């Protein structure tokens, strides 16, 4: 554990560069930026039947998608995917390889750095984003709205249907939990892909994310059960309150599991264990040398 923490501290110090700090701010700022856009520019059709809970549900799902899903994924990708390739490319691998269990400590230490980096950026991001989305912004029903939607401005519509999230504490807690789980799971996934396919780590991780997590993960078929997205999404719907209309629409039957929260977390932790085990076995079994081709 001492050696893993040594790698963790060393790598954390090493990534404290202006370039990495910029990306940390980008990852943290992305959900805030999207929430600002949504609250300021989305014109909600003020019609009868649309409730504040509908709006809140929409904002919560959107926040989940930009923060624990996309931002956290990006954060983990930036740190975990090139973890092995960068050591091999700069020929620093060998110094770690000739230490007792050096590669084991390297992989786990770098994994912890990726989790910390991605989770910290996303947690800061979701907290700011929730505050932005919860800010009180009364909407006005204009004459044009009345004409276009055939409604009359009433106190109920004017006051209640505002962009934002109702239960900020619930959403904040859920998003923080999901961000941490997402950082753990995606960092392990990218660490595995980056180790097994170290020569094209970034490209492969992006392709895998697009094809499996973002495409197959939303397929209402058995295949989506084997994605991290499916488990995180299920937890989102477990931990937050949705509108009646959304619940009754039957969408959840296709995009989320009806198993317990504990089961979802066990699934995610199992993925983490499997991904890291594959990465660790890979560095133990394969021959990685930093020698260049001419350096026989």
């Amino acid at each position, binding site marked *: 554990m001492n050696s893993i923490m040594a790698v963790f501290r060393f790598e954390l*110090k090493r990534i404290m*560069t202006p370039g990495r700090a910029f990306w940390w701010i980008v990852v943290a700022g992305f959900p805030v930026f999207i929430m600002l856009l949504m609250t300021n520019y989305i014109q909600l059709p003020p019609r009868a039947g649309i409730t504040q809970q509908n709006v809140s549900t929409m904002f919560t799902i959107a926040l989940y998608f930009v923060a624990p899903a996309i931002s956290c994924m990006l954060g983990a990708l930036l740190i975990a995917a090139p973890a092995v390739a960068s050591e091999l490319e700069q020929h*620093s691998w060998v110094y770690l390889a000739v230490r007792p269990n050096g590669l084991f400590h390297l992989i786990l230490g770098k994994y912890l750095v990726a989790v910390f980096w991605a989770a910290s950026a996303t947690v800061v991001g979701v907290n700011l984003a929730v505050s932005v989305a919860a800010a009180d912004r009364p909407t006005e029903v204009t004459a044009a709205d009345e004409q276009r939607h055939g409604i009359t401005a009433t106190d109920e519509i004017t006051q209640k249907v505002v962009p934002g999230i109702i239960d900020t504490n619930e959403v904040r807690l859920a998003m923080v939990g999901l961000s941490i789980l997402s950082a753990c799971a995606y960092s392990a996934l990218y660490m595995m892909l980056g180790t097994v396919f170290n020569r094209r780590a970034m490209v492969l991780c992006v392709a895998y994310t697009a094809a499996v997590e973002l495409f197959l993960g939303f397929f209402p078929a058995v295949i989506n059960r084997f994605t991290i997205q499916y488990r995180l999404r299920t937890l989102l719907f477990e931990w937050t309150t949705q509108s009646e209309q959304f619940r009754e629409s039957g969408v959840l039957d296709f995009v989320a599991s009806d198993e317990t929260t504990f089961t979802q977390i066990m699934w995610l932790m199992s993925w983490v264990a499997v991904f890291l085990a594959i990465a660790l076995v890979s560095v133990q079994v394969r021959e990685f040398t*930093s020698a260049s081709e001419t350096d026989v």
Partner: protein
Amino acid sequence: MTVSMVSDYLIELNHVTKLYGTVIGVNDFDAQLKPGAYGLLGPNGCGKSTLLNLLTGQLVPTHGTVRVLGQSPRNNSGLMKKIGYCPGFEGLYATTTGLDWVTLLLQLQGVRLRPARERAADCLAVVGMSHDMKRPISTYSRGMRQRTKLAQAIAHEPTLLFLDEPFSGLDPIGRAEMTDVLNDWIGLGNSLIIASHVLHEIEALTDSFLLICGGRLLASGTAGEVNELLFDSPSEIEVDCSEPYRLASAMMEKELAVSISVEHKSHGDDTVRVRTLRAGQLWMQLPDLINGHGFTVTRVRSADDSLQTLFNSLLKIHRGEI
């Protein structure tokens, strides 16, 4: 897995072959070395680095077995505590300080943070880096980086040290200082395997050589034994003489040369280039030949002083062509 096994040998290589696809890195290498200091001598691309990668467990032999201190080096954490490795390439983190880097590598040997930092500072001082160890490595000169690499290799007090071209990039003073550090280290009873393509670098540290070329062990022994082996090997010699054609004729008469060419120079004496199959014989008879005929010779030198020629000769001896 750590295999506890007592062995008299420092290193045992039993018919080790390493193939990279169809390219041979090391070819049927067989050697047993007792504890001590050894120079691994060979031209660039001869398999030195592959051999060191095999000895440090980073590569697995395609055929044969490798044992270091009686144990297989592959994934052997117990053995890794006893060996130090200084690779030929740099591979240092630019933004990190030398002190932080050596401290990390000591911590990976199981040393706690505070003692690791103290020990790292001591080792960096030993290699002459005490004033610069808190600067980022990106600001180091090539020589400073070499010293820092050596510091990480000896910091955990291994009993066996592998060095791959450790003098590369060092100025003469740096070479002398590093030679002193390594001689002191050997003097403590530790073992050393140093790979280089420069003979005199190794000679300053040890008299025991392993000469490899094309992935093969061509010869081993002391410098004297290797010289003896090469005494009657083919060679090319240049002689600057005022009467080149007469000298050439005299050499042919004595059957000392297989081919001779004369190179005319605009200034000074012309050069006679002599190819011989028995260099030792030529070197012994040349003074008498010059004196007997009264030639004026201004310079005699070996035209093929490169290590590659020496290894080509050894390769022919190895194949039984000479």
